[in-house]
């Protein structure tokens, strides 16, 4: 049974369609990155999976209907929706008490262990902590829960680079194992693209690209083309072309590496470049990407 199974997931706010028939299947033990422009429907999709919003279509998370079984589902699912959701009045010790009190799978000693590595005082209120420390606290709470699915919606928004790096390092080193599934949405793709096992691009409520990272490495190639080979390169039907320092950079999908090598320097595109290429094609006639 997949961790998440969605068929024809739809959600409209009035006349605005936030999700327009999303089909998705996420297996256990994957780290899925969901990338999309603002307002693409990422958060709506996550909210549907977390039982925060009603939807049309079929959706099963860990075999449950999130909308009708949210409280039961939350024993196996954790999410950090936003860095700023810890209430400002709560003390660190109270937050630990509360989660320990309501969550059967919370390991308090583990959370205390994570907090011991930070400068967070047990008696402090959240309002006294810096934004980075609040994230550390929230992460310590969440990582001490033995959950099967962790959902992170822009978890590092507004944090400086040191905290962002720490955040993903602890997530990978201390939390992730093959039994857990993690879903992340973010705008800071470069920092965590090495973490993903799978990638989804979402635009205007639809999944416009879905691929495993291994597949991306074998399928997509980016060539910084020698100026005199541009015509030859364009003849191979690149899916996208851009200029870097005045030199054309062409992105190819499923093209023979042997053919590309003579044209210039060949490398695997970054997720950000791939995203721009896919979204650029979205604007014009749809081609190439799924």
């Amino acid at each position, binding site marked *: 049974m997949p961790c998440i199974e969605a068929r024809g997931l739809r959600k409209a706010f009035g006349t605005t369609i936030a999700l327009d028939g999303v089909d998705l299947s996420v297996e256990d033990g994957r780290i899925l990155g969901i990338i999309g422009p603002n307002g693409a429907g990422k958060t709506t999709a996550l*909210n549907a999976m*977390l*039982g*925060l*919003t*009603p939807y049309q279509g079929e959706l099963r998370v860990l075999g449950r209907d999130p909308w009708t079984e*949210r*409280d*039961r*589902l*939350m*024993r196996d699912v*954790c*999410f*950090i*929706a*936003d860095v*700023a*959701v*810890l*209430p*400002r*009045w*709560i*003390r660190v*010790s*109270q937050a630990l*008490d*509360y*989660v*320990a*009190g*309501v*969550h*059967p799978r919370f390991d*308090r000693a583990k959370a205390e262990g994570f907090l011991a590595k930070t400068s967070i005082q*047990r008696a402090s209120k959240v309002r006294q902590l810096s934004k980075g420390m609040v994230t550390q606290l*929230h992460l310590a709470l969440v990582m001490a829960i033995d959950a099967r699915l962790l959902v992170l919606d822009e978890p590092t928004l507004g944090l400086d680079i040191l905290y962002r790096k720490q955040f993903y390092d602890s997530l990978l080193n201390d939390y992730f194992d093959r039994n857990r599934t993690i879903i992340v949405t973010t705008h800071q793709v470069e920092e965590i693209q090495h973490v993903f096992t799978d990638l989804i691009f979402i635009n205007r409520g639809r999944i416009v690209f879905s691929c495993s990272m291994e597949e991306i490495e074998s399928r997509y190639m980016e060539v910084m083309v020698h100026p005199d080979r541009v015509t030859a390169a364009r003849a191979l039907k690149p899916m996208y072309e851009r200029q870097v320092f005045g030199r054309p950079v062409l992105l190819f999908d499923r093209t023979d590496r042997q053919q590309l090598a003579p044209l210039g320097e060949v490398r695997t595109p970054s997720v950000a470049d791939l995203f721009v290429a896919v979204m650029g094609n979205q604007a014009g006639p749809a081609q190439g990407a799924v």
Partner: protein
Amino acid sequence: MNTTNTPSNAVPKSGRDTQAIAAAATSSTRPLYWSVRRELWENRYVYVAPLAVAVLFLFGHLIGMIHLPAQMRQLSGVDSEKYREAILQPYDIAAAFMMGAYILVTLFYCSEALHGERRDRSILLWKSLPVSDLTTVMAKASIPFVVLPLLTFAITLVLQFLMLLMSSAVLLASGTSVASVWTHLPVFQMSLLLLYHIMTAHALWPAPVYCWLLLVSGWARRAAFLWAALPVLAIAGVEKIAFHTQHFVTLIGRRLIGDTQLVAYTSPDIFPTDPMTHITPAPFLLSPSLWIGLVVAVAFLAAAVRLRRHQGPV
């Protein structure tokens, strides 16, 4: 309210059935218990405000006691009934002040209860934990219906007891007899009457008002109290203009302040010689208006539970 040790999850090992039952019981009551705790962490005024009122009242009583010995000498001539009334009066006033604090705190709490978590976005944290909307709303409703009545009762008892001790000390110091004061204060009956009064007149009877506020606090994007009060005003206004009557306002007013005839006393101007004889629970507990009110209150709560499922941060 700050404890670092949590009750353990331990269950008796006498058999799988007991274990399963105990586990089921803990899994349903523990979230409720901790949700009530979190209400008290967040809204410390729930207990601070009544305590502050009690302390202030005690302070006032302390100053007022300068006149006490003279007052007692004046009273020595009057008949037993008047004497008793005069002795009881400050204790009744103390209780009345505590009831006032209870009503104010409750109105304020209920019009904030389901709004604060949406305003500070913490609803996203609470909803990420295995606590149902029903449990959350029940925990919030337990503040006006369980925590505050019991707290008000306890504080009032302690307050009255301290007043009695202080009066006795002053009277003893001035050489007046204390015995007559103590014999005229039916302490046990007074406390029973007090508890009955709080639970009926201030918790059960106005329940629809409190639950309406809870519901609106879960719906309004801001100024929940205003949104809760506006419809009342509007309906009353329409009624007044259209029918020249004011049944609706009277109805709401009675709910809020209490219907004295139903609640306790047979006649408000004769002070009871024995308070217990004048508690007549039957007519109150059997009155349809109480039960209609409670049904409406439960309906409001059910709507608040359903509403919270749909709500996110404002």
